């Protein structure tokens, strides 16, 4: 991820060129520095150049013809150049591959960067680059390719390298098994929907004839024929398609949980039983047409909702598939890629700068800075050297490390943390949705009114009492009520996804709509999540030299310095970096020392008073002072800190106006948390530092214990358990995969604005749901009045029910919830 960013930045159109030269592969402008005047074709990066050569060499030039047609979002090719040795491991095959009866092997791979028709064309012709591939098929909407290959001809690693060389880095998806099950579920629901639709259509034709007969007369035998046929067609609709609701209703009854399915089931079953009885005895009313339409419409709602839920879960699973699942193990002085689950204690792994450490262990050799923010939330990198303990999930930042593995996988600290996430998810009380709560009261009211109807009509006209009661139960069957939530929610989920907020389920929108306590993790949500220069005191003329020196270092402070002072870099004569200390360099006949206070104190006899004053001020504010000395004398003090996001204060105010109380829980030191809270304008319920993942979890549990709606916003593994335990956990962009899995919603953009947008949108969605429910209850009241008076005929029911549904559908679909006004 880190490596890809500068690549994209470097391909932005240069201001120097009025009409930039397009890259021969991806079509993006070629940076001026990369233009090679001797070459016939220009490329924006090495990746594009490599892919171009491969395509030309294997007769796949047609790619460019397809590419031109519909590529709305070109991007440079970024082959990872990994070896994919792990794809050949036996454990990998057991886990992800499938041997076909023909002896061929099949695997599903998630491909990075597939996005258009040309990608489909190219991926499906990968056999021209990788002989031995029998078939490849790409599902563009999921970015998953199904590859069938002959293990006698080629190894999977070779296929993976071929796909990678085309710019589509493959990943094994952990979600494949889950996906297969879910696909079965999708197909089953679609089939039920199809049957319900066919039944509804055909029964409606029969009903049309019957209603015609009401007005123009119809001989008894024909009427009876049509009734019997309607009965026959409605049966599969009720028991096969409607089985979804009947099962749900039965479960609600058994577990005594409120659920929409219960009143729906009562309506369907009484309507069906009453209709069947009247068909048998050849007199009275039948409601098969209304029932079939009802089942069909309710299933449409279910289907839409399922589809939109899936979009969010798919996205989070595919993101988690991008997690490094391999480690490089040192075997006989040679590094080999192995799946992380195959790591054993006692092995030595090699971790390059920028890579995530795959297991807990002790450093054998090398010294570096390690970003531990994922585990602890501490934003400053930790300096480590041989003998120090490092943990899985942390990122090695500056130099190669050799690590002796102590525990990997589930036994690692990360693994144990993830287990507590699963436990928290299991223990969490489910959210009771508004519609289900309404449905709970609804059942009692409807049953009460039904009893009343029965009692009244037993007095007035006993022969018609049963008929009227059945009519009442059918007409009050909450079709609109049942559709109001799924439709409003699926429309909202779609709009939310368009603006970059992904919810894993509609119930979380409802949870977010209620006011409560919103708990923030500091790193990444309230702050930028990286060190930035906040102050520079002293002689500014040393800046060009400082820049030259810092350009040689990969330390986060050095990078922050370069971001603050961009420009050209002079050559450095001598460069010596002490990890955890600083840099000793010779530049333009001067000696320049840049480093931490303690490191420079050892090298300078005395610090001037102004410098001491600055050091103590900045340290007290939780900032990191860095000293600069030129030829043995201190010339400047710079301070670095993880800065508060610019929009933070405003967005917090917006959240407060929506009725949320805010709190901060951070793994950072208390001074830093205090500074951040103060810079955001204060007003937090609590702002606690030094919080371990376990403490965060305990805080959230305690807050929820008070029956409060608790919203946790975080981005690291250290937040994952708390995210899972909260009423709704929101992970912000750039977060760890584990937090995405634990969260109920996530945003694709960092910062507080999306969180406030999400809360705003959720509030509007709940309003839409309320309107839908109100409308459907209104129609039901009308139906009850008609049924009580005995004026309700099947024809009236058949008109009333779709009418109420149409009202609710139009209310739900026309509403703007997450999408801003004015956008299409």
């Amino acid at each position, binding site marked *: 991820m880190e490596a890809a960013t500068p690549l994209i930045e470097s391909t932005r159109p240069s201001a120097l060129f009025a009409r930039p030269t397009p890259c021969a592969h991806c079509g993006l402008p070629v940076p001026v520095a990369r233009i090679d005047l001797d070459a016939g074709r220009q490329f924006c990066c090495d990746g594009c150049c490599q892919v171009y050569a491969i395509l030309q060499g294997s007769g796949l030039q047609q790619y460019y013809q397809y590419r031109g047609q519909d590529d709305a979002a070109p991007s440079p090719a970024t082959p990872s150049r990994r070896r994919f040795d792990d794809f050949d491991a036996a454990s990998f095959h057991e886990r992800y591959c*499938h041997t076909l009866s023909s002896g061929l092997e*099949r695997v599903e791979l998630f491909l990075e960067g597939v996005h258009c028709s040309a990608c489909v*064309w190219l991926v499906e012709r990968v056999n021209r680059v990788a002989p031995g591939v029998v*078939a490849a098929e790409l*599902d*563009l909407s999921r970015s998953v390719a199904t590859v069938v290959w002959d293990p006698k001809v080629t190894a999977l690693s070779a296929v993976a390298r071929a796909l990678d060389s085309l710019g589509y880095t493959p990943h094994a998806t952990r979600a494949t098994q889950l996906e297969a099950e879910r696909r079965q579920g999708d197909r089953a629901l679609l089939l039920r929907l199809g049957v319900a639709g*066919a039944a509804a259509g055909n029964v409606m034709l029969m009903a049309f004839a019957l209603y015609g007969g009401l007005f123009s007369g119809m001989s008894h035998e024909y009427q009876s024929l049509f009734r019997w046929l309607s009965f026959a067609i409605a049966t599969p609709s009720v028991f096969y398609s409607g089985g979804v609701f009947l099962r749900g209703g039965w479960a609600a009854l058994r577990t005594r949980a409120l659920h929409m399915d219960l009143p729906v089931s009562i309506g369907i079953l009484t309507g069906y039983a009453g209709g069947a009885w009247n068909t048998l005895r050849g007199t009275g009313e039948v409601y098969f047409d209304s029932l079939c339409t009802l089942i069909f419409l309710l299933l449409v709602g279910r289907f839409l909702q399922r589809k939109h839920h899936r979009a969010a879960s798919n996205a989070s699973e595919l993101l988690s598939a991008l997690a490094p699942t391999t480690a490089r193990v040192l075997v006989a002085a040679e590094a080999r890629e192995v799946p992380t689950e195959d790591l054993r204690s006692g092995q030595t792994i090699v971790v390059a700068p920028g890579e995530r450490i795959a297991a807990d262990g002790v450093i054998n050799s090398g010294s570096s800075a390690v970003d531990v923010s994922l585990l602890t939330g501490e934003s400053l990198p930790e300096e480590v050297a041989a003998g120090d303990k490092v943990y899985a999930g942390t990122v090695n930042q500056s130099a190669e490390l050799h690590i002796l593995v102590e525990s990997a996988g589930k036994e690692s600290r990360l693994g144990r943390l993830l287990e507590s996430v699963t436990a928290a998810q299991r223990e969490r009380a489910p959210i009771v949705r508004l519609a289900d709560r309404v449905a709970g009261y609804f059942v009692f009211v409807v049953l009460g009114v039904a009893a009343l109807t029965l009692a009244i009509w037993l007095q007035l006209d006993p022969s018609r009492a049963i008929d009227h009661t059945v009519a009442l139960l059918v007409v009050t069957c909450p079709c609109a009520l049942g559709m109001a939530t799924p439709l409003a929610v699926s429309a909202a989920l779609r709009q939310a996804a368009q603006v970059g907020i992904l919810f894993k389920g509609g119930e979380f929108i409802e949870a977010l709509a209620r006011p409560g306590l919103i708990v923030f993790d500091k790193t990444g949500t309230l702050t930028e999540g990286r060190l930035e220069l906040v102050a520079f005191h002293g002689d500014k003329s040393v800046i060009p030299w400082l820049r030259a020196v810092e350009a040689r270092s990969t330390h986060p402070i050095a990078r922050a310095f370069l971001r603050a002072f961009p420009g050209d870099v002079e050559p450095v004569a001598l460069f010596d970096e002490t990890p955890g200390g600083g840099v000793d360099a010779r530049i333009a006949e001067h000696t320049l020392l840049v480093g931490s206070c303690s490191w420079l104190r050892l090298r300078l006899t005395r610090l001037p008073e102004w410098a001491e004053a600055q050091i103590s001020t900045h340290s007290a504010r939780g900032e990191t002072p860095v000293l600069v000395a030129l030829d043995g004398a201190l010339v400047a003090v710079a301070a670095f800190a993880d800065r508060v996001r610019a929009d933070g204060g405003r967005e917090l105010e917006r959240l407060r106006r929506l009725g949320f109380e805010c709190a901060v829980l951070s793994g950072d030191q208390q001074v830093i948390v205090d500074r951040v809270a103060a810079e955001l304008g204060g007003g937090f319920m609590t702002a606690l530092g030094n919080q371990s993942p376990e403490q965060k979890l305990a805080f959230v549990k305690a807050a929820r214990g008070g029956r409060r709606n608790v919203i946790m916003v975080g981005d690291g593994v250290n937040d994952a358990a708390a995210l899972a335990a909260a009423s709704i956990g929101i992970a912000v962009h750039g977060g760890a995969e584990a937090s995405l899995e634990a969260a109920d919603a996530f945003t694709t953009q960092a910062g507080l604005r999306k969180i406030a947008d999400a809360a705003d949108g959720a509030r509007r969605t709940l309003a839409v749901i309320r309107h839908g429910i109100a409308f459907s209850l209104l129609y039901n009241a009308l139906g009850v009045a008609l049924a009580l008076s005995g004026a309700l005929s099947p024809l009236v029911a058949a008109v009333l029910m779709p009418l109420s549904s149409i009202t609710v559908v139009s209310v739900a679909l026309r509403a703007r919830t997450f999408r801003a006004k004015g956008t299409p």
Partner: protein
Amino acid sequence: MNIIFLILPLTLVLSVASVAAFAWATRSGQFDDLKTPALRILHEDVAPKSANVKTRPLR
């Protein structure tokens, strides 16, 4: 009106046939991916081997 005794069964047979066809199409995964086949058909050359990997539900 006697024609009804011919038409009604015929309608039912047609309905059942179309539901059966729909069931077959769903079970064979034709509705799993609604995006890619629409793009694939625009490619002029024939894919090296039509990957009939999805005609059976994946297990």
